[in-house]
């Protein structure tokens, strides 16, 4: 039998934030539990029935009391709300220099792709002290990427991209769990997070067989799927020029304007008729079934890599993190 553990390990910048909130919630709860339990205990003993003929006098409702025990707890809950909301607000906004990693969940494994090309299954290697942003989708049912030591979790939903980020503060090996029930081997859809010293991470990244980066793989797919026949880079093609597309505002044929982000590109590959760029015909066939979720992510990385540096979602070159490691793109 393993040892008894009462508090989870703390391995990300979010962990202390969440733990401090937990302590506040616990203190408030213990206070109210003690007050209520003590009151019941004392009243029950002090006013116990001594004779079957007892009839207590009426005690009239005190309006002030009712207001007090409604308003004071409400005030406390608003502190809880604000505190909890401020943490999720932070958790929903990855810093600009966050390192991008892609995750695809499927029954019953986690597939991870690093930008530089290294791929892994049921493992995630990350460098210490560097914000990591995960963009995630699922091939089949809903999963949930949960790292208890980092105090973060996000559902991995088929048909859309979910995003989460964390910054590890401790090297070591930590649990990765699937938290959303996903069928037979749900409890086997687990893995490990390896937080490494930045230099070790670099060595790991360049280890294994020489590999193409995600963008290079995407470029090859772009040729193999014959995307390049229509999407030409000199605006002579029948379809929009994709150079510098990522992160730009796009005018649609129905008059709407949207931003060309990961979700838009994914949708345009799998359901090309959903949103048509203004000035073009809906002639593109669907690539549903011809390209995997991982392939779509590689194509997105390729599109990000051509043309000017993107401003949405992707990581621009490091500006402020002196200690971070350089990456080749």
């Amino acid at each position: 039998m393993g040892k008894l553990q009462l508090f989870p390990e703390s391995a990300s910048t979010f962990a202390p934030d969440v733990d401090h909130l937990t302590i506040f919630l616990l203190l408030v709860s213990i206070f109210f539990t003690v007050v209520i339990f003590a009151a019941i205990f004392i009243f029950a003993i002090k006013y116990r029935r001594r004779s079957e003929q007892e009839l207590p006098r009426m005690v009239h409702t005190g309006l002030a009391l009712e207001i007090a025990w409604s308003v004071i707890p409400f005030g406390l809950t608003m502190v809880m709300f604000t505190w909890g909301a401020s943490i999720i607000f932070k958790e929903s906004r990855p810093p600009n220099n966050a390192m991008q990693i892609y995750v695809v969940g499927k029954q019953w494994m986690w597939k991870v792709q690093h930008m530089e090309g290294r791929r892994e299954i049921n493992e995630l290697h990350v460098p210490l002290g560097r914000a990591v942003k995960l963009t995630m989708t699922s091939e089949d049912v809903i999963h949930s990427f949960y790292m208890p030591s980092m105090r973060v979790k996000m559902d991995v939903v088929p048909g859309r991209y979910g995003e989460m980020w964390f910054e590890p503060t401790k090297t070591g090996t930590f649990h990765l769990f699937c938290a959303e029930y996903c069928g037979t081997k749900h409890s086997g859809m687990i893995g490990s997070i390896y937080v490494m010293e930045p230099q070790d991470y670099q060595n790991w990244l360049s280890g294994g067989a020489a590999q193409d980066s995600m963008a290079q793989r995407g470029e090859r797919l772009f040729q193999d799927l014959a995307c390049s026949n229509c999407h030409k880079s000199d605006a002579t093609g029948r379809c929009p020029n994709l150079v510098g597309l990522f992160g730009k505002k796009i005018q649609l044929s129905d008059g709407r304007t949207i931003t060309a982000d990961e979700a838009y590109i994914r949708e345009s590959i799998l359901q090309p008729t959903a949103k048509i760029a203004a000035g073009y015909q809906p002639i593109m066939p669907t690539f549903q079934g011809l390209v995997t979720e991982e392939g779509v992510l590689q194509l997105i990385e390729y599109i990000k890599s051509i043309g000017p540096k993107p401003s949405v979602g992707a990581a621009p070159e490091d500006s402020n993190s002196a200690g971070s490691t350089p990456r080749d793109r």
Partner: protein
Amino acid sequence: MITAAAQEREHYLNASYGLKSWLLTKDHKRIGLLYLMTVTLFFFLGGAFATLIRIELLTPQGDLVSSDTYNKLFTMHGVAMVFFFLIPSIPATLGNFFLPMMIGARDLAFPRINLLSWYLLVIGGLFSLAAMLAGGVDTGWTFYTPLSTSYSNTWVILTALGIFIAGFSSILTGLNFIVTVHRMRAPGMTWFRLPLFVWANYATSLIQVLGTPVLAVTIVLLFCERVFHIGIFDPKLGGDPVLFQHMFWFYSHPAVYIMILPAMGVISELVSTFSRKPVFGYGFVAFSSVAIAVLGFLVWGHHLFVSTQSVYAGMVFSFLSYFVAIPSAIKVFNWTATLYKGSISFATPMLYAFGFIGLFTIGGLTGLFVACLGFDVHVHDTYFVVAHFHYIMVGGTIMAYLGGIHYWWPKMTGRMYPEGWAKLSALVIFLGFNLTFFPQFILGYVGMPRRYHVYPEEFQVLHVLSTAGASVLAVGYLMPMVYLIWSLRYGAVAGANPWGASGLEWQVSSPPPKHNFEETPVVTTDAYDYSKVMGEVIEVG
């Protein structure tokens, strides 16, 4: 032994005999007993599944059953307990039996529809039971898509159909209660003289009537996608999987209040009777039931904090969730204040009421934890959530249900239960419950996800504690089953009003006459006026 006097007097149990007189009865009291038997059956079925789950979790390896079987066990535990025990438990048994009596009515407004409701529950139950016998279902009681529509190859449709049918039972019971409370109150029984149990069931009925149809629609859509491959939820067919969660929780969060509001109503009755005092802040307690029913419809999104729902939507739902906490807190404070300067009896129903207040307080306070965004992201879908909702549904609803069963047992059967055994069972259940579920709060916080067949070794100690508690709890639940049946024949004969309670149901003989009241009662005082039911009194307080 049945005394000669009791043998002679006609009451609802001996007014007619034979299976037909029960299966075709229109008497709300008999229908209440039919429900009692039905939900008890499902309670022990759900309990059997829980037992297997807890035994499997004694060790980190999956060594008792396969993963598929384990997944079916927790699914069927949830389905049996939620849809066929907790939702009908208090309203359809105690509510059916006592709501008309408490307002001075001879029956519910629609006695035939009442019987139909019971048949619908039974038919729905048989469908779900057939699915379990045929091989079971493994989607979790939440039926999340696209797992349930495109991936599971178990008996999803048969189970969902059972829930769909049982839903109509719930709707019709709600409708019946609403009309009864509006139209059938005795002369002088104004809204603010209603016992709080009636207020609580009225509020519950509103949810049943307004919420359950949404569940029905959701099941129809699930059916369309699974059987006809119409793309609604599965993105491969062009659907949106998170849409299902919105629709499911739009019913299933209010359904939590279908389970807990009637329990709160029972507790108001018990606390008042066994303190021999009106409930402190009657109006606040009554309106808090209605407030919970209304606000309960606005918080479903707190089940979707990590579903990739917009973070701003999450904030709105978190904010609104705290609003619904306040009426619950108001009730707890008022019950506690009722004890002040009361005349407090420690009869078994009151022990259950104390147990309820304690466990509901912990369940409610941990509700504040999971409503808190930053905290929930960590514990969502872990054992913390499992512990939290079991404190509400088992610690809350079942404690109140058992308290109510003991309280009204003399009225329903004309017999007293054995007080010593009953006190012991209340204590065993309270201790067993805490040992089962308190360790699960810690398990969740250290990161153990729910619905795991196999788990890392470091979680074992807490799982062993939880399983130990579950065995104590099982003994606690079996005890009343035995001594209550025993009491039907050997229990002391109960008088009309063994507790000195003030409600109208205690002013008729036990068991009640077939039509409840020989003469329509006329109400002249507020609820919980004990001076009228007592002879000589010693004033205290």
